């Protein structure tokens, strides 16, 4: 039997984000689902904060490449969906209903969607939908924010806007994040630590600390340090082929 993942350990300082990069099929997304408790390991165990994960963690927020908003709900009602579920499940983290609207509006304001509460998802652009998806992942103040290539489907400029937005949200709300991405520049911009994984079995082969200060600017991505780091990681993930003779 082939193992999808082998002896993987991530250390994530509270309030920081780590990135997982690696070739396709190295188990990055599987690792994310294991952390969230959405899939159970066929062998071995997963522990978060020293506690074994036995089922969905409940205090995580997730966002994917596909924003999957509910088309029959307005932006506001999409945002409130997590709170509705926590409320129904008598979760102590669900705030009083009177605070819901205020909380949603504040988040929307932060991501530049103030006043969009009553719009329908189909009226929004791809970037706007992804912002709503990010807000939905954060509305319940999760301890962990798990992002699986959240900006991969956006155009380059919108993606950079989203990085800055992510950074702004991170400073404001101090979530702890795990980001799965194929985009090395994205990893360098958003993460404090980058884990490089290899495929079959999925393992962590390199760990890089990103030395850039915070908050980061797009300009820093062109610094010698960032460029060298991106080149190193690229080589580690996909060693360049020798020229064909």
């Amino acid at each position, binding site marked *: 039997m082939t193992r999808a993942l082998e002896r993987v350990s991530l250390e994530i300082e509270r309030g920081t984000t780590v990135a997982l990069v690696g070739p396709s099929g190295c188990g990055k997304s599987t690792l994310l689902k294991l952390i*969230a408790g959405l899939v159970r390991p066929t062998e071995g165990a997963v522990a978060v904060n020293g506690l074994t994960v036995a089922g969905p963690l409940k205090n995580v927020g997730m966002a994917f490449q596909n924003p999957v908003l*509910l088309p029959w709900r307005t932006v506001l009602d999409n945002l409130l969906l997590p709170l*509705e579920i926590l409320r129904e499940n008598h979760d102590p983290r669900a705030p009083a209903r009177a605070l819901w609207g205020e909380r949603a509006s504040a988040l929307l304001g932060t991501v530049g969607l103030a006043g969009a509460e009553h719009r329908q998802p189909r009226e929004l652009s791809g970037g706007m939908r992804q912002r709503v998806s990010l807000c939905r992942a954060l509305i319940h103040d999760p301890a962990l924010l798990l992002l699986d290539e959240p900006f991969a489907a956006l155009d380059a400029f919108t993606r950079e806007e989203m990085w800055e937005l992510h950074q702004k949200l991170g400073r404001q709300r101090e979530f702890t994040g795990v980001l799965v991405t194929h985009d090395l520049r994205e990893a360098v911009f958003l993460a404090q630590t980058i884990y490089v994984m290899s495929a079959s079995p999925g393992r962590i082969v390199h760990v890089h600390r990103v030395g850039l200060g915070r908050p980061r600017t797009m300009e820093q991505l062109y610094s010698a340090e960032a460029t060298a780091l991106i080149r190193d990681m690229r080589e580690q993930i996909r060693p360049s082929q020798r020229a064909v003779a």
Partner: protein
Amino acid sequence: MSPPLRRLVLPLAVFAGLVVVWEMAVPALRIQQIVLPAPSGVVRTMVQTAGPIAFHARHTLVTTLIGFAAAVVPLLVMWFGIGAVPAVLTAFLLAFFPVAVNVALGLATLEAELRDVLRALGASRWQIFRKVGVPRTMPLFFASLKVAISSAFVGSVISETVASNAGIGYLMAVAASDFNTRLAFGGLFVLAAMGVALYGVFAAIERRMTAWAYAE
């Protein structure tokens, strides 16, 4: 002519045109009234026989609706099945499958990411079904209801024709055996009208409930 008005007027004009062609074709081609009566004759007979037609129409409508309700709420079939009303069961069998298959399809094609977003919050299967599965399948549900209502009518009428002493199907069978072709066609007209009316009812409910699924 405004677009909504045109949408109403054009089909009506086509329908009226067909009736006129039919009315003129019967004498022109010397078709015997017993083979194909002219529409005017059918309408005259319908007016004369209005009382009995109304009784039988109500019967067909009721069996169809009962069969239909059974298709929408599968539990009811256990209940109605005991009485073994053939028309109800036939209507049910024809209506149930399009509805069940389409709703199951809607649930099976739920995006994996959406399921993950909700499960990560601790949502139960029941919660995911209620909050996402049910609203998501509504367009498919109504689409299949509109197909099913016609099938349910076909089911009731076929069953009434062979195994009933009431209903439009029965009325048409009796009229045909009496060579009262006008009355048989009258039954057909009433059936068509009931089918269109119920279709319209579901289409109206659909418009209200699933507007989100259609771009304006």
